[in-house]
């Protein structure tokens, strides 16, 4: 297939990626799906997980903490809450962060504090899970 898929990855702070790729696998709310050029229009919510960008035989995985994907005839757009390239994640550091987040959760006294700590912890755990 000569065609390439136009792919935009944007977060509220900045544009993370814009360019043409072969395929993107998106962790949709109701299951993963791959997007190739010429995909039918879809709008889907994304669960926290890793998107895999396939290009020229290489696969680049980026963790996304929830968001939204839109497939239009022009290409794929992902609105990500926040995104971390998995290649840049340090496993040992992540383990420490998770332990710290668990402590925070145990220490939290107010409901708000608990909710915030829980959100931070589940984000880190999802990140760890997507490392696989």
């Amino acid at each position, binding site marked *: 297939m000569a065609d390439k898929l136009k792919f935009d990855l*944007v977060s509220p*702070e900045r544009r993370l990626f814009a360019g043409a790729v072969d395929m993107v696998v998106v962790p949709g709310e109701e299951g993963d799906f791959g997007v190739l050029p010429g995909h039918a229009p*879809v709008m*889907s*919510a994304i669960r926290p997980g890793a998107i895999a960008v396939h290009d020229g035989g290489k696969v680049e995985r980026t963790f996304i903490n929830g968001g939204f994907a839109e497939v239009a005839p022009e290409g794929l*757009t992902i*609105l990500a809450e926040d995104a971390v390239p998995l290649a840049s994640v340090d496993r040992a550091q992540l383990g420490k962060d998770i332990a710290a987040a668990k402590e925070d959760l145990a220490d939290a006294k107010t409901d708000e504090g608990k909710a915030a700590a829980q959100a931070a912890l589940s984000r880190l755990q999802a990140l760890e899970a997507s490392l696989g």
Partner: protein
Amino acid sequence: MASLKDLRNRIASVRSTQKITKAMQMVAAAKLRRAQEAAEAARPYAQKMAAVMANLSASMAGSPGAPRLLIGTGKDETRLIVVLTADRGLCGGFNTNIARKARERIAALKGQGKTVKILCVGKKGGDALKRVYARDIIGVVEIASAESNAALAAQTGERLRAMFAEGEFDACELISSEFVSVISQKPRAQTLVPAAEAIDEGAAKPDLKGAVYEYEPDEEEILRVLLPRYIDTVILAALLENAAGEMGAKMAAMDNATRNAGDLIGKLNLVYNRTRQAKITTELTEIISGAEAL
């Protein structure tokens, strides 16, 4: 007539003021660049979000399941005005202009017999409005109190949604400053809730070539997730634009102040030299006439 010493002191004091305003101008210039970059970096997300929302709301409008945040409560009695200003002054007419716009809107709404509630984000807005509308202000949030603009936008959005769910207001407007250019900022009012009114129908929609979007999960679910995020995005974009505008205004104000101080120093120097010369001439005349008298 001021003595020479007084004049010297005066010149020294204006000169140190000039140094301060000059430093503030340079700090503002550096911050402006960063703020502008942040505002520009956030733009693609906001644009995509607007396009997606335009799409969704068009297909949802009129359906009974549409969320109230999108279509409104059906009445329009209580309005919440969110006034975005800066925390600090010394930035020319920036805060004043936003506060004036807010006062105009509030007066117009009150004239129509509506109840108005005011939420100030940014300390200066609260300061400017509390003299006239102290009873209507439900809260003043300091920008410096939040970790980041994104966190502040999320907090504000959360508060709005909680209030809306409690039925504390029917519609919400956001008053902030539009960043036209570095030297020009225009206050602007935009609707936040009901979101259907706020969504730009003209936003570029993708050409589906006759195909229909598939929704996963269904439209209602997606809209329920996306709508709060959309509101946060609009607030964040306004916050970032405000930050850039504040720095632009501060830079211009401090540039004016620096130049003004320069003019003042020039004038004072002239007076100082003239006074000094006059004094020397008088002394000489005294000595000469004294010598002649002998």
